[in-house]
């Protein structure tokens, strides 16, 4: 009971401090830079269609990037299990991608995707999707590899004794075993795909997208509008995370939580 009550009370406290401008006094700022929650709400309500349009652009990139990157990462993990000798190195090289700053990747990818399409929105989306995919790929490949290899003791031996073919080894043992690990990767991947998308949008050609709107509104000193997009980004993040939790609960309803 208190598990829910305390955080909610804390949240209300912050909102009250914010709305009564006490927060502004603490941070030495004004309602122009840090608009009141009511004002942010009003802006979201007034500009709902515009915000929705930008949200769709961002969410599409984030989800496509996440899915493509995760699929590629999983495939890499499967290949590493099949070809362990060269695979170990591939895994190490892939994991290095997580350490590369997005700020360095995004402009490079913009350059590389210039010829993909004559339409700005398409080629910009492709560029952003590749960046998100690269970031998610490394995370997934590492987790999936663990999921595919860290099977219950002796289950591998059992499969061998039953003369299971390599394909069966995957479909009956390794792949089912990796399911919880996929969710572990996605739990990191969902927030990071959204943030990566937003940062890539800073550098993108196309003017739509939450990240781009935050930047543009700040350049024009429309802080309230920028806040509206930041709140939207948080809501998307929480919504996608919640969605992931629901999917996980459905997929793993017959398993013990890890």
């Amino acid at each position, binding site marked *: 009971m*208190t598990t829910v009550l*305390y*955080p909610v009370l*804390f949240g209300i406290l912050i909102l009250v401090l914010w709305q009564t401008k006490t927060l502004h006094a603490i*941070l030495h*700022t004004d309602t122009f*830079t*840090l608009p009141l929650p009511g004002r942010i709400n009003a802006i979201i309500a007034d500009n709902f269609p515009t915000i929705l349009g930008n949200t769709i652009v961002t969410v599409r990139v984030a989800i496509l990037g996440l899915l493509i990157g995760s699929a590629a990462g999983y495939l890499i993990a499967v290949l590493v299990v099949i070809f362990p*000798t*060269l695979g*170990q*190195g*591939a*895994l*190490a*090289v892939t*994991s*290095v991608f*997580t*350490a*590369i*700053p*997005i*700020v*360095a990747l995004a*402009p*490079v990818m913009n*350059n*590389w995707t*210039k010829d993909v399409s004559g339409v700005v929105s398409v080629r910009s989306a492709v560029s952003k999707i590749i960046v998100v995919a690269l970031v998610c790929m490394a*995370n997934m490949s*590492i*987790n999936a*590899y*663990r999921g595919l290899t860290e099977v219950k003791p002796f289950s591998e031996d059992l499969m061998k004794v039953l003369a299971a073919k390599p394909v069966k080894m995957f479909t009956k043992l390794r792949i089912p075993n990796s399911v919880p690990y996929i969710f*572990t*990767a996605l739990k*990191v991947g969902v*927030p990071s795909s*959204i*943030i990566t998308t*937003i*940062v890539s949008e*800073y*550098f993108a050609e196309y003017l739509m997208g*939450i*990240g781009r709107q*935050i*930047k543009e509104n*700040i350049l024009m000193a429309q*802080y309230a509008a*920028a*806040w509206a*997009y*930041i709140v939207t*980004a*948080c809501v998307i*993040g*929480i919504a996608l*995370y919640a969605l992931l939790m629901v999917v996980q609960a459905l997929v793993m309803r017959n398993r013990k939580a890890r």
Partner: protein
Amino acid sequence: MKKIVKTRWFSILFWVVILAAVWEAAAFHVAATKRNPENILPHLYQIIAAAFSTQKVNQSMTATQLVLSSAATTVFRAALGFAIGVASGFVLALLMNLSGIIEKIAFPYLMIIQMIPILGMAPIILSITGSINVSRILIAAILTFYPVATNTLAGFKSVEKEKYELMASYAAKKRSLYTKVLIPQCIPYFFTGMKISAPMAITAAILVDTLQGDGGLGCVLSQSLRHAMSISVFWLIVFFSAFLGIISWKLMGWLEVMFTPQKRHLSKKKQTDGKDVELCTKEKNRSGKSFLKAGVLQR
């Protein structure tokens, strides 16, 4: 020969060579079809040549000098923010472990923090704090804070019931429980958090650089992107910032070995005792695992 082929280093080298080959092939293709190939994909040797070129890219510095001096600025800011974030993350985890109320209040917000696009908020933080330096450090600190806090908390929670009971049977004081059991045990988790956040702190510092002048890698990066200076500077920065991210991550791994006696002992043994093959491979597996863990524990 076969033995060399089977080592991890060989396979890493193999893939690095493959990636370089793909890059070069693409570079030849771009060079043949584009008017300004160096903007899209220069040859690797062109980038290396740019690194060693003595030609000045601005009034006083060569490309390498410029990149290194701005990198020093960026790294310093990132390190400062990182240190603050690590310290506060550790303290929060400690408080959460000490007090059930604090844990209950903070835990959901710790989850929500990772949903907030802090990097997206960079411009706003800039206008709230009014100082580019303060906001740079603040953003690096916030980004660092989350993985360190969650992983350290996971480290405290990993202490088995039996260890608490053992300490209780010795009538150990709370302070001894923390200094002798909980903190030493959470060290590897703490470093896992730092391995995740060190590259993030670098990314944050570079990104905030792009918002306003005042030196730093991001600043020079956006100048070169606007073709205010040679494009080779751009490529040097791309590679150098990737290098910084990787090295910051590696550095945390080395520090971890230094601060975990059992790992230090094993790696020392590995160096001096080459014959002990079994132990070596065991240790290799172990380091491979902790290496894998780096990206994993950020739940």
